[in-house]
C-alpha cells in the first residue's frame, strides 16, 4: 500500500529527470541554454547561501500577502452575507479588481508603495483575494434551508446562527480557496519582485537570466516551486486538523 502510494510517483519523477539528463548529454545541449538536472543540483548546493538569502524574503512576502488577502476576503464575505445591500454595492468593485491583470498592476503598485515589502505583499494579497471571497460567500450561503429552519425553531440569534451554523459549514469551501491561494501568493510575490526589488527569488531569477547563469535560474525556479508546495502542504495539514467531519455539500 505505502510502497505503491509513494514509489510510483517517485519512479515517475526519477524517470523524467533521467531522460532529461540523458538528452542533454547525448545531444550536447549547451548548459547555458538548458542545464542538466545534475548541474542544477550542483548549483543548488554551491549557490545555497545566495538562494537562502533570497528565499526568506519571498516567503515573508507570500505569507504576508496570503494573510492579508485571505483575511480581507473572509471579512468582506462575512459582511456580504449579513448585508445584501453591501454585497450588491461592493461585489462589482471586487470583480473589477479581479479584471486588472497582476502583471499590469505591479508597476503601478511599485510606483505607489516603493521598493520594499509593501508592493509585494499587496500584490500577493490581491492575487489570492478574489477566489477566497467568492468561495467564502458561497460557503456561508451553502446552508441547508432546513438547518436555518432548525435555528429558527431553536430561537437562535444572528450570532448563534453565524457561529454554530454558517461559519462551520463554510470551512470546507474556505480551505479549498486557501489551497489555491498558497501557490498564487508565491507567484504574486515573485512577479512583484521582477518589477522592482533587490532581494527575493524573483530578483534572483532576473539577475540569473541577464547573466546567463542558467543553472542558478533553474535552481531558483525549483526552489520557488518547492516553496509553493510546502505552503500548500501546510494548509492541507491545517485543514485536516480543523475539518474533521465529512462535509455534506462538497465544495467544487
Amino acid at each position, binding site marked *: 500500500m505505502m510502497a505503491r502510494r509513494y514509489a510510483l510517483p517517485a519512479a515517475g519523477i526519477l524517470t523524467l529527470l533521467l531522460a532529461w539528463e540523458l538528452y542533454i548529454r547525448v545531444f550536447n545541449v549547451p548548459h547555458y541554454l538548458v542545464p542538466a538536472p545534475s548541474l542544477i543540483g550542483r548549483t543548488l548546493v554551491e549557490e545555497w547561501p545566495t538562494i537562502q538569502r533570497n528565499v526568506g524574503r519571498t516567503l515573508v512576502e507570500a505569507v504576508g500577502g496570503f494573510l492579508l488577502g485571505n483575511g480581507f476576503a473572509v471579512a468582506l464575505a462575512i459582511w456580504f452575507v449579513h448585508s445584501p445591500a453591501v454585497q450588491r454595492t461592493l461585489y462589482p468593485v471586487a470583480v473589477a479588481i479581479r479584471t486588472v491583470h497582476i502583471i499590469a498592476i505591479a508597476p503601478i503598485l511599485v510606483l505607489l508603495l516603493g521598493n520594499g515589502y509593501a508592493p509585494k505583499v499587496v500584490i500577493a494579497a490581491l492575487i489570492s483575494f478574489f477566489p477566497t471571497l467568492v468561495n467564502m460567500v458561497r460557503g456561508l450561503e451553502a446552508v*441547508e434551508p*432546513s438547518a436555518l429552519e432548525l435555528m*429558527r425553531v431553536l430561537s437562535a440569534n444572528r450570532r448563534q446562527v453565524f457561529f454554530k451554523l454558517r461559519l462551520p459549514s463554510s470551512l470546507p469551501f474556505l480551505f479549498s480557496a486557501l489551497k489555491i491561494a498558497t501557490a498564487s501568493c508565491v507567484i504574486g510575490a515573485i512577479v512583484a519582485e521582477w518589477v522592482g526589488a533587490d532581494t527575493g527569488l524573483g530578483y534572483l531569477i532576473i539577475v540569473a537570466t541577464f547573466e546567463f547563469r542558467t543553472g542558478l535560474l533553474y535552481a531558483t525556479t525549483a526552489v520557488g516551486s518547492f516553496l509553493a508546495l510546502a505552503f500548500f502542504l501546510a494548509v492541507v495539514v491545517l485543514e485536516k486538523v480543523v475539518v474533521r467531519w465529512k462535509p455534506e455539500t462538497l465544495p467544487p
Partner: protein
Amino acid sequence: MSTAGRGVSGAGAPDAAAILVEGVGMTFSTPSGPVQALTGASLAIKPREFVSLLGPSGCGKSTLLRLVADILAPTEGRIEVGGEPPGVARRRRVFGFVFQDSTLLPWRSTLQNVLLPLEIGGHARRDRAEALDLLELVGLRGFEAAYPWQLSGGMRQRVAIARALVTRPQVLLMDEPFGALDEITRENMNQELLRIWQATGTTILFVTHSSPEAVFLSDRVLVLGARPGRVKLELPIALSRPRDPAVKETVEFARHTAALRRALAGEARPE
C-alpha cells in the same frame, strides 16, 4: 424510566388544547402572483394526543406544521400552542421539531447535536446527563461520540428525535420524519416512536403521506385536501393501545386505511 413524565408541566388550564388552529389561511406571494396554500384550516389537539396530518404532496400539510412552529406566519386565523401564540411558545421551547432530513450538524458528534438546543438556550453543561438519558431512550447509548456520517438514516432520525426532546417540550411537531427511510427501518421507527411517545407523554402532531403509517401511530388522522389545502376528513382510529405491528394484519386496520385511501383517491381526481 428516568425520562417518564417529562414535558407534562406547562402553562395553560389542564383541559386546554395543546395545539389550537382556528380558521387559518396561508397565502404566499410569488413572482407569478399570490398562491393560496391553506384556507380555513381548523383543528384542536388535546394534550398527550397523537394526531397525524395526511395528504398528497402540495396539500399544505408541511405549511400547516410550519405555521404551528412559527417558522411561517399565517395570513389569516389564529394559532395557539400550549395556550400561547406560536412565537411565544417557540421562545419558551414549548415544542420540538423533527424534520424530514435529520438536519444534524455534520461537524458535531451525536451528543453535541443533542445538546445544541440547550447550548442555544444558554445552559448546556448541566444537562449532559439528561442528553445521555435521551440517547438511551432512543436506543443510541454508546454512539454519543459518533459523527452523523458514521450513522445510518434511521439512527440519524433517532438523534434528531432526541435533540427535539432535550428541551422537554410539551409538543413534538414531526414533518415526515421517516419519509426518507426504507420500509423495514420505517416500521421499526414507528414502533420506537410509539414507545418514546408513551415514555415522555408529549403531544405529537405528525405529518405523513402514508395511510398505514398514520393509522398505526395515531389517535386521530386528519386528511388534508389540496389547492387550497383544507381539512377534508377527520378519522378517529379505534384501535387499542399498545399497538404492535401485528395490528396491521387485522380487518379493523384495513378498514381504517381503506377509509383514508378513499378520501385521498377523491383528492387525486382532477376537479
